[in-house]
C-alpha cells in the first residue's frame, strides 16, 4: 500500500517581479530532497498546492516550498508530516469485515493560518472468502487557527448501524466493541464523547451529542438500548453553567417486530382487586440560563390515590379528567393537585395554582364525581412579584340515587371586590328564614330613636326628649345570576313575619318591605338587587 499527501505553499513576496516557476521538493531525510515538482508560469503573491502520491506508509516526509524569478530561487522553511499506515482486515468469511484502525495525527504549527486538512478514504468490499481491502471511513478534522501553536479542536461525527450477521461479531463502526450473543442483535458498547466547554461569561454554554441506533429484530429476547446523558449543574456566577437532563429509554420485548423505545409518559391504573391502586407521575424540567444566580427547575408532580371500592378498575386518568365509576356501597374518592410556579415576567401573568379536592360521600347507591374541566382567568398585577391564584372548591353534589352523579364547575376569577365576597360567604351566610340571600355585597342596619324638640323661649338650647324607637331598618344590596333566586326573593314581600340572620350571628324578627332588582344584566348575566327589611317587635 502507498500513501498520498497534499502539500501547501504560499508566495509571500515577489520583490516587484512575478515568479516564473513554483513547486515543492521533498524527501525522507531532513535537508535532503531527492523528489520535486515544478510548474511554470507567472505567479504573484498567492497560495498553491500539489498532491503527492506513491509515498511510503508510516514514514516521515520532509518538504519545502520553492519559487523562482530572474533574481533567483527562494525556498520556504522545511516542514514535516507522517504518512498513514493502513491495516488490512482478517477475513471472517461471509459478511463485511470491519477492521479496527488506530489513527493518530499530529499537527505541526505553521504559524499564522490553519494547518492542513487531512482526509482519509478507505473502503472495504466483501469479496466472500479472502480479505477485504478497503474500509469506508471518513472523518473530518477541522482545526481553527489559533495563531501561534498547534490547533487542537476536533469535530467527530459518526452514524452507527448494526446489522445482525448471524454468528460472529456484529460490527457497528469505528472504535466500538460488540459482544456476540449468538442469534439476535448483539449489545453495542458505549460511545463516549467529551467536549470541553469554554466559558462565554453570561449564558449557558451548550453542546450536543447525536447518535442514531438501528436495532434489527432478533426474534425472542429483549433488545435493550440505553442512552443516558448526565451533565451536572452548578451555578458559577459568570462562569460555565451546565444542565442535567436524564433520558432513559427501555425497550420491552414485543416478540416479533422491532421494539420501540418509550419516550412519553403514561399513567395507567390497573385494577388490583381488593388492593388500593395508585399511580404517580413526576417530571423535572430544567430551564435555561437566567444570567446571575443558579438556574432552578420547574417540577410538576401529579399523584393519584384511588381508594379501592371492590372489584373493577377504579379510575382512569387522562390529563386532568377523572371518571369514577360507582362500584356499589363503598366510598370512592379522587383528587388532583398541580402547582406551576413561574419566574417574574414584569408584565403578564406570573403564576397559577390550582387545587381541587372533591371527596365523595357514599350514600348507598354511591355518589360519583366527574370533573369536566376548569378554566382560570388571572389578572396581571405587573410589578416584580408573582401572582398566585387559588381557586376554592365547590363540592356541590346532589345524589341522584342509583345513577352516576356528575358536576362540572367553571371557576371564574371575578374583579377584586366580588372575589372578597366568597370569603364573606364562608364566614357565614345571610339568611331570611332558611333562604340564603345570594351574593350579598353590603348590609346597612339603621336604628333610629324618635326625638322631639321642646323649644324654650329665650333659651339657648331646646329640650330634647326621646319618645321611642321604631325598630331597626335593614338595607341589603347583592346580585344574582339566577332567575329562580330573583323569584324567591320577590316572594318574600308578602307581609309574613320572618327572621333575619346576620352573618355576625345576630338575628331578629323582620318584615320584608321591598325588593328592587335591576332590570338589566351585566356581561356575566348578573343582576343587582336591593332588599328592604324592618324589624318587628314581639307583642
Amino acid at each position, binding site marked *: 500500500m502507498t500513501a498520498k499527501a497534499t502539500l501547501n505553499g504560499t508566495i509571500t513576496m515577489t520583490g516587484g517581479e512575478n515568479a516564473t516557476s513554483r513547486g515543492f521538493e521533498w524527501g525522507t531525510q531532513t535537508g535532503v530532497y531527492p523528489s520535486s515538482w515544478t510548474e511554470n508560469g507567472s505567479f504573484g503573491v498567492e497560495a498553491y498546492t500539489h498532491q503527492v502520491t506513491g509515498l511510503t506508509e508510516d514514514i516521515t516526509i520532509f518538504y519545502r516550498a520553492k519559487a523562482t524569478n530572474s533574481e533567483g530561487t527562494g525556498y520556504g522553511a522545511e516542514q514535516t508530516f507522517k504518512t498513514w499506515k493502513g491495516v488490512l482486515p482478517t477475513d471472517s468469511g461471509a459478511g463485511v469485515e470491519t477492521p479496527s484502525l488506530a489513527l493518530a495525527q499530529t499537527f505541526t504549527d505553521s504559524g499564522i493560518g490553519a494547518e492542513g486538512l487531512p482526509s482519509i478514504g478507505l473502503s472495504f468490499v466483501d469479496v466472500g472468502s479472502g480479505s477485504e481491502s478497503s474500509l469506508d471511513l471518513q472523518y473530518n478534522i477541522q482545526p481553527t487557527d489559533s495563531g501561534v501553536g498547534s490547533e487542537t479542536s476536533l469535530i467527530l461525527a459518526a452514524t452507527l448501524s448494526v446489522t445482525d450477521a448471524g454468528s460472529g461479531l456484529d460490527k457497528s463502526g469505528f472504535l466500538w466493541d460488540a459482544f456476540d450473543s449468538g442469534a439476535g442483535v448483539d449489545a453495542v458498547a458505549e460511545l463516549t464523547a467529551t467536549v470541553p466547554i469554554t466559558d462565554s461569561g453570561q449564558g449557558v454554554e451548550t453542546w450536543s451529542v447525536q447518535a442514531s441506533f438501528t436495532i434489527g429484530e432478533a426474534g425472542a429476547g429483549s433488545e435493550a438500548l440505553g442512552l443516558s446523558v448526565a451533565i451536572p449543574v452548578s451555578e458559577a456566577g459568570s462562569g460555565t453553567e451546565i444542565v442535567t437532563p436524564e433520558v432513559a429509554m427501555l425497550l420491552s420485548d414485543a416478540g416479533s417486530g422491532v421494539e420501540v423505545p418509550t419516550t412519553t409518559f403514561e399513567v395507567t391504573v390497573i385494577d388490583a382487586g381488593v388492593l388500593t391502586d395508585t399511580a404517580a407521575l413526576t417530571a423535572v424540567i430544567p430551564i435555561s440560563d437566567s444570567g446571575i444566580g443558579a438556574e432552578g427547575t420547574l417540577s410538576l408532580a401529579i399523584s393519584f390515590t384511588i381508594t379501592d371500592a371492590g372489584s373493577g378498575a377504579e379510575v382512569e386518568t387522562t390529563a386532568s379528567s377523572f371518571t369514577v365509576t360507582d362500584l356499589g356501597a363503598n366510598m370512592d374518592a379522587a383528587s388532583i393537585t398541580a402547582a406551576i410556579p413561574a419566574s417574574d415576567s414584569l408584565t403578564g401573568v406570573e403564576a397559577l395554582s390550582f387545587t381541587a379536592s372533591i371527596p365523595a360521600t357514599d350514600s348507598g347507591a354511591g355518589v360519583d364525581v366527574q370533573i369536566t374541566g376548569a378554566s382560570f382567568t388571572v389578572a396581571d398585577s405587573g410589578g416584580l412579584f408573582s401572582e398566585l391564584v387559588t381557586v376554592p372548591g365547590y363540592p356541590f353534589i346532589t345524589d341522584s340515587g342509583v345513577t352516576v352523579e356528575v358536576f362540572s364547575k367553571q371557576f371564574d376569577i371575578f374583579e377584586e371586590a366580588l372575589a372578597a365576597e366568597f370569603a364573606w360567604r364562608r364566614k357565614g351566610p345571610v339568611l331570611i328564614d332558611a333562604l340564603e340571600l345570594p351574593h350579598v355585597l353590603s348590609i346597612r342596619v339603621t336604628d333610629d*330613636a324618635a326625638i322631639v324638640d321642646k323649644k324654650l*323661649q329665650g333659651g*339657648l338650647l331646646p*329640650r330634647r326628649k*326621646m319618645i321611642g324607637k321604631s325598630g331597626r331598618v335593614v338595607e341589603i344590596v347583592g346580585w344574582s345570576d339566577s332567575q329562580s333566586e330573583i323569584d324567591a326573593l320577590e316572594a318574600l314581600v308578602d307581609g309574613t313575619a320572618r327572621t333575619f340572620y346576620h352573618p355576625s350571628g345576630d338575628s331578629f324578627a323582620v318584615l320584608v318591605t321591598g325588593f328592587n332588582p335591576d332590570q338589566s344584566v351585566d356581561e356575566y348575566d348578573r343582576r343587582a338587587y336591593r332588599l328592604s327589611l324592618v324589624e318587628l317587635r314581639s307583642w
Partner: protein
Amino acid sequence: MVTFGSYPLAHVSDVAIQESRIISDRLIPGAKIGHRRDQTAGGRTITVTGQIRDDPDYVLRLEEFRVRQDDVIRSLDLEDGSTAIDAKLGSIEAVWTVEEGVDRPSYSVTFYETC
C-alpha cells in the same frame, strides 16, 4: 378619643356638627320683607363616623351603642379642645361591605345637643 359619657367611640374618622337657630316669620302685607325674630337655639346635631375593627366583639360594640339610646343626657367630648356637649344619642347606622368583611363594620351615630 371621642367619648360619650364614659364610653369611647372606636376608630372615629369624621365628626360633623350642624348648628341651627329657630327663627319665626311674621308676614306684613304689602311690605317687602316680613318680620323675623330669632327665638332660640335649635341645638347642635353631631354626627360621628367611624369603623369597628381589630375587635372580635364587634357585635357587642354595636349593642353598647344601642343601650345608650335611653334618653339620658351624657357629655359628648370631641377631644378637639372645645367644651364637651351635653347630648342624647339619636340614630345609629352600621354598614357591612364585602370589601371590609364581616369583622369591620363602619358606623355612623347621631347625637342631639340638649339641656
